[in-house]
């Protein structure tokens, strides 16, 4: 099963664009690639032809084309599968441009080729998430260093308490409407004093999707992490569709249902928007209604398993009394139907991924390409 295929081919000065297009049409007959003009090292013009295919019919045709390859070629791909796949379930294949122009398919290693990225539908989507806890995790002290709480707000005391409880990093959340230079200065001082990793996070509270878009664009420039406060159907959807949003916070807020459905789940997975399970919403709810929150969390987890979007657990702490030990959170998340692996992902791997992604956001050129060193 394939989610989508994206490809890219270069047209160098010595090559004809029409011929490269013809070579591409051997692989993807129904695709009409976009063209981007760039400049090579020697100031020569290089065209980049690229497109993303997500129509089921076109994907099926491509799979049939692959399966029509001769047996030794197929065997070679299978043998190299491990090297050609990344941690996110993407399979990278390069097809010879010259051979494709002649109507033939050949997988090659060199750069003068049609680069294809095939997103394989799998659960868990990320290879490194096949992480397994061995034995009793409470005895493995080194795991303590990897937990992150991405939604706390308060002063120095709350950061110190997070450090004492074993968190490796926290993100301090501020309301977008209240954020100003004074708060920014305060945060900088706290960051300077703290011994753990710290990021600032802006919480966006809005009434309609248009307002959300504007606020996200603004906050992206000033905050490390952008969090949207959910609850309203339209806001939940708009947040899931926006790639600039990192976290959709409490989509179930003030609702009877979980605020997520299969459509939002698919969008959240596509745009890499993490859905937050906020422990304070569970702990601060009246004991008589806690069962409702548990069932909402369970529903979110069921959708996560099917559609593969990210889920993070945060404490949502506003005082030291709301903070909990990461290993206690592990035990509690078991009540929401989460396995140990899922809890670990939600408390460690995904927050780390969000932090890493935002640290490198300025360096991203396009999907899969980032600037390492500027020459």
């Amino acid at each position, binding site marked *: 099963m394939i989610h989508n295929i994206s490809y890219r081919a270069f047209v160098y000065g010595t090559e004809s664009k029409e011929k490269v297009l013809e070579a591409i049409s051997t692989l993807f007959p129904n695709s009409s690639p976009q063209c981007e003009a760039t400049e090579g090292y020697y100031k020569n013009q290089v065209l980049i032809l690229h497109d993303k295919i997500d129509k089921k019919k076109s994907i099926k045709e491509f799979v049939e084309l692959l399966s029509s390859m001769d047996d030794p070629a197929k065997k070679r791909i299978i043998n190299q599968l491990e090297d050609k796949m990344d941690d996110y379930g993407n399979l990278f294949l390069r097809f010879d441009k010259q051979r494709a122009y002649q109507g033939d398919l050949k997988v090659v290693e060199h750069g003068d080729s049609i680069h294809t990225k095939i997103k394989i539908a799998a659960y868990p989507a990320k290879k490194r998430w096949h992480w397994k806890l061995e034995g*009793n995790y409470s005895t493995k002290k080194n795991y303590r260093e990897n937990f992150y709480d991405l939604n706390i707000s308060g002063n120095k005391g709350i950061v110190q*308490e997070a450090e004492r409880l074993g968190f490796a990093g926290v993100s301090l959340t501020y309301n977008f409407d209240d954020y100003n230079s004074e708060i920014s200065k305060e945060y900088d001082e706290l960051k300077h004093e703290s011994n753990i990793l710290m990021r600032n996070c802006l919480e966006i509270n809005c009434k309609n999707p248009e307002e959300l878009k504007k606020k996200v664009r603004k906050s992206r420039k000033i905050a490390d992490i952008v969090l949207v406060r959910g609850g309203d159907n339209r806001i939940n959807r708009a947040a899931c569709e926006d790639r600039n949003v990192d976290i959709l916070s409490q989509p179930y807020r003030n609702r009877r249902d979980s605020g997520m459905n299969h459509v939002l789940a698919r969008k959240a997975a596509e745009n890499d928007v993490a859905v937050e399970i906020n422990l304070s919403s569970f702990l601060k709810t009246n*004991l008589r209604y806690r069962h409702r929150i548990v069932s909402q969390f369970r529903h979110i987890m069921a959708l996560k398993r099917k559609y593969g979007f990210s889920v993070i657990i945060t404490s949502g702490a506003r005082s*030291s009394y709301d903070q909990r030990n990461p290993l206690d959170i592990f*035990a*509690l998340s078991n009540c929401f139907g989460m396995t140990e692996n899922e809890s670990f992902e939600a408390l460690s791997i995904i927050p780390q991924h969000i932090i890493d992604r935002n640290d490198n956001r300025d360096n991203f050129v396009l999907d899969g390409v980032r600037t390492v060193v500027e020459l």
Partner: protein
Amino acid sequence: MNQKLKILPPTMRDKKRYIAFELIFQGHMTREDVIDTIIEGSLYLYGACGTGKFDIWVVKLWKCGKNTSPHGNPDENYMRGIIRCRREEVDSVRAVLPTITRFRGKHVVFHTLGISGTIKSAIKNFIKL
């Protein structure tokens, strides 16, 4: 005459685990209060049916006095203690502690310090008084 039961043979006894915990409270709490809070928390989370399986009991409790709270607030009471439960249910019992948020209208927080097979090692490794 109320005769004491003969102790069960070791193979028939339930295997136990000891959870060392700390609690920070804004007022004063007795041992009975701590037991009530934990049992009540368990009842709200798992009900009578679930709590019955845990064999939950507060074994020991140490009052660390004022000015010892990790939050740095002199008005808070800081205590450490040990809960006994069945070995198979240790994760479920552990999940009860973070759900306790209030006692008599005031904030209270429980944190697990660690899990041990004997009271002696729980004191040595986690209570550390």
